[in-house]
């Protein structure tokens, strides 16, 4: 058993609470991130609240990875950005048209995943390998 207390608006958890501070007993391995303050009382977050926090974190992470993945792809092909690709595609450059088609496919996969993410359990989300997932979104051939 450990003790949680509030200090400077933040929750801390330790083996002993400071003297003179109102403390709440919490199970071992409880994190401050698992708790919240409601009307001066420390209460645990619901499983759904914790799952949503995990999902939000993964959502941000995968968007960051996707942006990096796309940038690398464009830079590798010699384009400054998607606007540059669009200009050359409109000029009927085949390479640019293929790259634009790849991006449409990639974005479709990505947003499809983000929709699926909303219904995923926290433990399933934490088992994801995001980099491999991004790489799989990028697997696309026009053939």
């Amino acid at each position: 058993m450990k003790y949680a207390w509030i200090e400077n608006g933040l929750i801390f958890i330790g083996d002993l609470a400071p003297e003179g501070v109102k403390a709440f007993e919490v199970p071992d391995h409880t994190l401050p991130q698992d708790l919240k303050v409601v009307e001066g009382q420390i209460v645990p977050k619901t499983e759904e609240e914790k799952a949503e926090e995990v999902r939000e974190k993964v959502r941000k992470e995968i968007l960051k990875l996707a942006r990096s993945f796309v940038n690398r792809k464009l830079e590798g092909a010699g384009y400054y950005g998607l606007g540059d690709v669009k200009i050359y595609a409109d000029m009927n450059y085949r390479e640019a048209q293929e790259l634009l088609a790849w991006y449409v496919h990639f974005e479709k996969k990505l947003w499809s995943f983000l929709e699926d993410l909303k219904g995923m359990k926290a433990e399933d989300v934490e088992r994801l390998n995001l980099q491999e997932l991004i790489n799989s979104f990028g697997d696309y051939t026009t053939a």
Partner: protein
Amino acid sequence: MKKRISRPYRFQYRGIASSAEHNAEHDLFTDSINELYGIFDYENGNFTLPASSVTMSGLRLDSFLLVGHNPDGTLKLPPMPNFTVNPSPNAVPMAGNDGKISVNWLPLGHNSGLNADTVDNFHASQVPAPNTIPVAGNDGKLNPAWLPAGSGGGDADTVDGFHASQTPAPNTIPASLSNGKLHVNWLPTGHGGGLDADTVDTFHASRTPTPNAIPVAGSDGKIDAGWLPITGSGGGSFSYYGRLTVGTSLPASGNNEGDLFYRTTDNKLFVFRNGSWSEINWLPFVQASPEWIAGRLRVQGGQLQVSPDGTNWHNCIPCVGASVIRIATVDNTSYTRLYWIAPGQTVVLDNVNHVPIVFAKDVNPVYNGYFVVSYNNNAAVDHVIGLRPNNIALSGGEMRHMHSAINPPTSLNVVVNSNASVFPLYLLTNSGSMDYGRFSVSIRNNNVMHGITLTQIVTGGFTALASTRATIPSSSYWFGTVFVHQSTPSQLTVPHVMLTRVA
């Protein structure tokens, strides 16, 4: 028998006097003669005067002469002494031609018994008086009143034959200068001069390290290591490196030069030097620290204690004695061995799941550190490696992490993690791994820890830079445990941790 004469015949002298008158006169003459004769005895034609008939103012001459005459009637005089001008035993002094007896007749010298009335017309006295010769009192000393006291007193020419002088000179009594001090040349100064002062500028000398004392070399010609500050720029250290062990008795074997040992039974610190243990007085180094001055460090019953607030005190061990100290005794279970380090001190820890170094946030200390650790993050989410001060889980540990893209490592990515349960040091994105990282940490008196960290990430061989901060409990007083913040945080054992206190 008395001599008598017969009266002569009477005759008449014509015309002049009657025979009766003549005869009367004649008879008177005869009677007077006979009366005179009656004093003496007469025999055989000799007159003798009976001694009994002689009186001298009541003194009988016969008694006086009874034993004082010889058989022939002459007086018998007593034996007469020898009268002489030359002093000799049993002789009577006699004046010489100058009318004076020799001075040698007098019993001169100490205890001679000669008792003169005056000397040169001056009388002697024990009581001070004008024109008087002083005499010692019953204590053998003169009454001080005989001496000319006060500034107008007497002026001796010498003392025991030595003159006084303000100028240093052989066989001379030193006199102070006008400033009331002796000329320095009176002193046997210089090496080998034999001058042995009690203090120098009011400071005493000592072989044992003591506050406000002048160090003296021991029999080995070296001062005790306890005189030196534990750290500092350059040569102020006892030694460059030492391994600190904590226990109840000094190890008898397996010791290396420079090893340190803290004995918990009496809270004494020792260094192994020249084959034996010597005590280090750690107190001066503790007292010179900013937290001691701030009232956040104290010694209670010989035990060093640190406090986060001046009210609650916690035991710790003074980690002093070398510039770099490898702490060999740690408690990875209960964290009971906590160490205090002074500004400038570096410590090395091996295989630790915590950093057992205490701090006093009120003095705003700053530390630099290094982690040598291999950690791979194969999870989908970021992992943050950091510290839980006092082994307390935090909320709101914040990190802004910048690193280059993996392939090619040219673009810059930024990650913000703002809800870690640790004070963040390193962040590993998914698939990221690190071998080495360093950090700079400032602990502020507003209970906020700030950090700048640099991580060498193995994957892709690039480097990450992070800015971190976290609010810690006000009760925090030590760096705490090492944790990886993830959905289920886990404590991390680090092969090597190095920490230097900057200020």
